[in-house]
């Protein structure tokens, strides 16, 4: 390395030695490559051929050529350009308008030869700095490029692994599908006898319940008769029934004599046997005189229960849905939300429906299944469980396959060198915010001192210029701006040994710019000699 530099400096010194002679031989502002067009004492033809002028009109501070070629060293032509040699640094062309404008543009000061501006020749210093930074860059590029090779290698292996896994999963998926179908048949076969046995059992139970209910009704009727028959004459009369306002057929608040008579089937009074028919008409409304004064009807009991539930959820509004969701998810897989939700709801329905039934029928509950039915049920349940488990396993495989396919389908660059960024996140902390870049996923911003995260854009596409597509990532459709567009982020990738977000800014409202270094964009380095040589020619 030091050997190469030494050689380079020597060649520079040599060039400088002869440089002075070269300068004299061409008019001010003309590059070496065009020297042959400016021959002293011969008429000058504009480089576009538009006209020919005496040589003393070259650089005479008046623009004669349409293309500005007669005034390479003055500001006379609006479209001219001036060549600075910049010995020790890089030669450059500047617009003619910058000649003698009082601002030092060429590091060799040659552009300000008549403006009074005091310019320092900084070419050597700039050359040195550039060489230094080029050297540093070259080293970074070199190391970065090695890392990139590794990344490519890993990505290739990773890709193969994934492909293999996918094939494997495809195989097991087929097996699982068959298994699911087989178990479905088993399940359905077991469920038919179960259903029959359960229906049988239920029917028997319903019949029994009906008998019990009729008996209870009779008892209630007898009690009611006794209660109504105030004078214990064995008849319920119009007057005795009239105190039961709840029986008022037109609900106008008063039970008239005619109305009461109607209730009694047109009679003034009825005996026990006739009361049976009257009872069937009033039993739904009838309130026992004993219970009326004591306990509340059962309906209002539910109200406070609901209220208290709301009350709780109000207070824990932040945690409630999360915990709730979390508990549910423990039993099921994470993905495919839609399907799962439906099933969960179905599973939840039976208990809530059963509760009021139980209450209505008081303490009387269905008797246990007989052993035969129970064994059928157990068999069916087992078949169902087996089926569910197989189906779950199939879904799991499906999900894995989808994720793999998605990952394999991503454009991770020509050699998949960006694959390692997938499912990673990189953060940068500024004075106010923490910025987070999750490549191929999203960009976000979170205030350091409280406040919620803002989505600055979701993965869109590679957006570099033609020929360098993989130098820029675009994330868009982020959170909307007030009166403005949705937030978006442009991520500029530069070569670096490390993978790190180096800066963020918001050049335009809600349009963010992020700089990101990664070895994955490091290009194969040209040899250092080549780099340096290319920039120091005279």
């Amino acid at each position, binding site marked *: 390395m030091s050997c190469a530099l030494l050689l380079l400096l020597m060649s520079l010194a040599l060039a400088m030695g002869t440089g002075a002679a070269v300068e004299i031989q061409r008019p001010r502002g003309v590059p070496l490559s065009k020297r042959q067009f400016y021959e002293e004492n011969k008429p000058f033809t504009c480089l576009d051929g538009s006209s020919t002028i005496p040589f003393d009109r070259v650089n005479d501070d008046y623009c004669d050529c349409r293309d500005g070629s007669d005034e390479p060293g003055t500001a006379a032509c609006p479209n001219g350009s001036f060549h600075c040699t910049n010995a020790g640094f890089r030669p450059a062309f500047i617009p003619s308008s*910058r000649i003698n404008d009082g601002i030092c543009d060429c590091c060799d000061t040659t552009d300000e030869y008549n403006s009074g501006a005091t310019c320092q020749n900084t070419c050597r210093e700039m050359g040195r700095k550039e060489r230094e930074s080029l050297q540093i860059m070259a080293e970074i590029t070199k190391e970065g490029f090695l890392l990139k090779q590794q990344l490519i290698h890993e990505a290739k292996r990773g890709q193969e692994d994934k492909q293999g896994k996918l094939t494997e999963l495809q195989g097991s998926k087929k097996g699982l599908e068959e298994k699911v179908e087989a178990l479905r048949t088993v399940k359905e076969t077991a469920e038919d006898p179960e259903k029959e046995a359960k229906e049988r059992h239920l029917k028997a139970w319903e019949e029994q319940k009906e008998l019990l209910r009729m008996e209870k009704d009779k008892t209630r009727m007898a009690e009611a008769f006794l209660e109504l028959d105030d004078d214990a004459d064995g008849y319920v009369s119009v007057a005795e029934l009239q105190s039961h306002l709840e029986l008022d057929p037109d609900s106008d608040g008063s039970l008239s004599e005619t109305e009461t008579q109607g209730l009694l089937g047109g009679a003034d009074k009825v005996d026990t046997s006739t009361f049976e028919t009257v009872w069937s008409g009033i039993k739904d409304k009838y309130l026992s005189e004993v219970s009326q004064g004591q306990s509340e009807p059962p309906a209002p009991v539910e109200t406070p229960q609901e209220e208290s539930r709301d009350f709780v959820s109000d207070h824990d509004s932040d945690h409630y849905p999360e915990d709730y969701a979390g508990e549910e998810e423990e039993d099921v897989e994470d993905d495919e939300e839609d399907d799962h939700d439906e099933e969960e709801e179905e599973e939840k329905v039976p208990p809530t429906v059963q509760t009021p039934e139980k209450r209505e029928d008081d303490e009387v509950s269905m008797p246990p299944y007989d052993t035969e039915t129970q064994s059928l049920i157990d068999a069916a349940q087992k078949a169902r469980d087996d089926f569910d488990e197989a189906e779950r396993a199939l879904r799991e495989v499906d999900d894995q396959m989808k994720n793999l396919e998605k990952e394999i389908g991503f454009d991770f660059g020509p050699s998949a060198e960006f694959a390692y960024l997938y499912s990673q996140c990189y953060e940068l902390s500024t004075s106010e915010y923490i910025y987070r870049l999750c490549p191929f996923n999203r960009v976000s911003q979170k205030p350091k001192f409280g406040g919620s995260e803002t989505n600055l854009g979701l993965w869109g596409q590679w957006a570099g210029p033609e020929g360098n597509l993989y130098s820029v990532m675009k994330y868009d459709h982020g959170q909307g701006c007030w009166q403005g567009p949705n937030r978006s982020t442009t991520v500029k990738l530069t070569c670096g040994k490390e993978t790190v977000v180096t800066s963020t800014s918001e050049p335009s*409202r809600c349009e963010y710019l992020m700089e990101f270094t990664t070895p994955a964009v490091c290009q194969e380095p040209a040899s250092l000699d080549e780099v340096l040589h290319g920039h120091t020619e005279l």
Partner: protein
Amino acid sequence: QDSTWVSQLSERLPVHYRVSFPCFGPGLISHLNDLSLLSQDENGVVLSLGADSQWLIVSAKPFRLDIMEGREVLLSLNSRGLLTAKEDGMWEETFKSHTDNKPNGPSSISLDFSLPGVEHVYGIPEHADSLKLKTTDGGDPYRLFNLDVFQYELFNPMALYGAIPVMLSHSAQRTMGIFWLNAAETWVDISSNTAGKTVFGQMLDYVQGSSETPQTDVRWISESGIIDVFIMLGPTPTDVFSQYASLTGTQAFPPLSALAYHQCRWNYNDQEDVAAVDQGFDEHDIPYDFIWLDIEHTDGKRYFTWDPHKFPQPKDMLQGLMDKRRKMVTIVDPHIKVDSSYKIHNEIRSKGFYVKNKDGGDYEGWCWPGNSGYPDFTNPEMRAWWASMFAYDQYEGSMENMYTWNDMNEPSVFNGPEVTMHKDALHGNWENRDLHNLYGLYVQMATAEGLIERSGGVERPFVLTRAFFAGSQRYGAVWTGDNTAEWEHLKISIPMCLSLGLVGVSFCGADVGGFFKSPSTELLVRWYQTGAYQPFFRAHAHLDTPRREPWLFGPENTALIREAVRQRYALLPYWYQLFYHAHHSGQPVMRPLWVEYPQDTATFSMDDQFLLGRDLLVHPVTEEGGRGVTAYLPGKGEVWFDVHTFQKHNGAQNLYIPVTISSIPVFQRGGSIIPRKARVRRSSSCMEHDPYTLFVALSPKRFAQGELYIDDGHTFNFDKQKQFIHRRLSFANKALSSRNLAPGSQFITPSWIEKIVILGASKPSKATLKTPDGKENLLEFEFDASMSVLTLRKPGVNAGVDWTVVLQ
């Protein structure tokens, strides 16, 4: 005096003192010497006004004033008897929880003016309306009340940011002006006896010969004050401009660089952003002189401070700009954050300089910084203190290449009635009600004074203001406020600036590109092309809009914008000369055509094209997808030359010009000479010593005249030490010569005459340059026979000396 008539009506025994501004303009003294009594009876007097056989007839019952010339009535006051000065009754108005109990009671005044023979009236800015004022019958009157209006509507008489109560009337016979000197809320009603007539009705009148004389009646109403009216009798537009200038002063002569291009945005985020934008202009070879910083540059909207994170080293930034010979403007608004750790606030509070509320406490309102106080700029001591805050050791981080922008000075009060100050707030003894429209003027006045003082009185200031009043022209530039990126807003920028120019304010511009919303690329390009030919040329954009620096729209559009800006820079010598005249004699820079062609009725309502000075006619393309424009070239017997192609067109014709996206139709009047600098550089300062190219456009009689004005471009030395060059350029008898117009002046310039382009010329056999030392040199020339353009090569003579070029 000079055909200006002052009518000041004071009441006897007023209920309270009314505000009046004695001797408002520089050196206005009422000369009543010329008045002589001609006749008198018990009901009135007839007075001679001196010159031009003008009479004033004063009638007592009913009160009425008639100004006559010969047998013709020029103008009548109170002919409709609408004179009022209300003193009776008291009432209150309530805004939210605030009650304005009007301690002085109703105090409104009103007066009507009749203008026989007048069908066109102009002025009374600021309104987003056509140049020719409309009649207000059946609608709202034009309102003058400085307000911070959010997204203003076009073609609406609603009040905007500024108010200049000056109206011009014009007919083919005479131009006159009415200056209603009152800074309270003012309304102007306009009616006309011809406006409502159909074309058929007018024709019928004509055929029957029975038409009544056209007449415009104007009624002025103000909420308080006295009736203090100046009548400017003209008779020419030029006369009216000088008469008005004698009352309120002339346009401040800006530093030359302020006439160049300004790059603004709410906001350039930090020093790096500023450096990057500056670099962008160089990379794309687009000139600019000023980059602007809006409110976000401050530390929490505390003006005179810098955000310590975004702008930690303001002097480094300013030095970086200075190294490129460029400049910066920072915003300093008049609302002051109420914050006991803020020096500016503490000083204003302790000195008692804040505007007070009706209970005597400091008036406070909401603005950008939150709770804010409003300094009482009507107080001369407050203004002197404010000015001292611009000293380099007070405004930390400021440097001599940093200038100032006063925004929100209506004043804007977010939680006030109509987003402004409560009318019963107190400026000393005066209610805001009485002088509301003056607040913004005083803010700019104090700021401009600060910039002058900080340089020891040497440097000319540059201050932009949003609010203004009659006289604001003396302190800097105004812009048309928060416009919108729409084609109609581009179009309205022309009549809005023309109206301001007519009443003294020449340094006017609209936000290029439109402030609110985002312009289409085509609109942005067209706006640059239009703005390049309007006096104040600044691009600006709202915080929430996407970036729109000129190079962000692809190379073709960058090139179009570059070309428009370069045209501006090349023409800067002419702009500078026009501003010198505006400063010197009050003639507007941007003019409606009728000002130069007062008898050509076809021009009276024109506001889609305009003149710069006398000699350039601009008809910008302001239609979306425009394929052509029809420009009216005035002046029968005159000729106009397309400045791009040099093609000659005859005057008094409607000329259809096919246009492309690169077209900016501009014409030079035959008979004029316009100096340009063809070497456009990255800032106007870089072009200071560059040579001139003279464009001589010959009249049909082969005559032309123009001027060349040169000074140092930034100090008052042109005024105080007569350090300037002012030359008369004239072409006659086949000779072009330069003669000194200001023998008492002296200035040395290294600039020389690079090229002379003569349009409408014939081919000479030789061209000889004669210089004062007796030398004669033959000049080479080129002649383009197809366009009759003669180009003289490199006269090389210094721009400050006498010379003659003779063509043979």
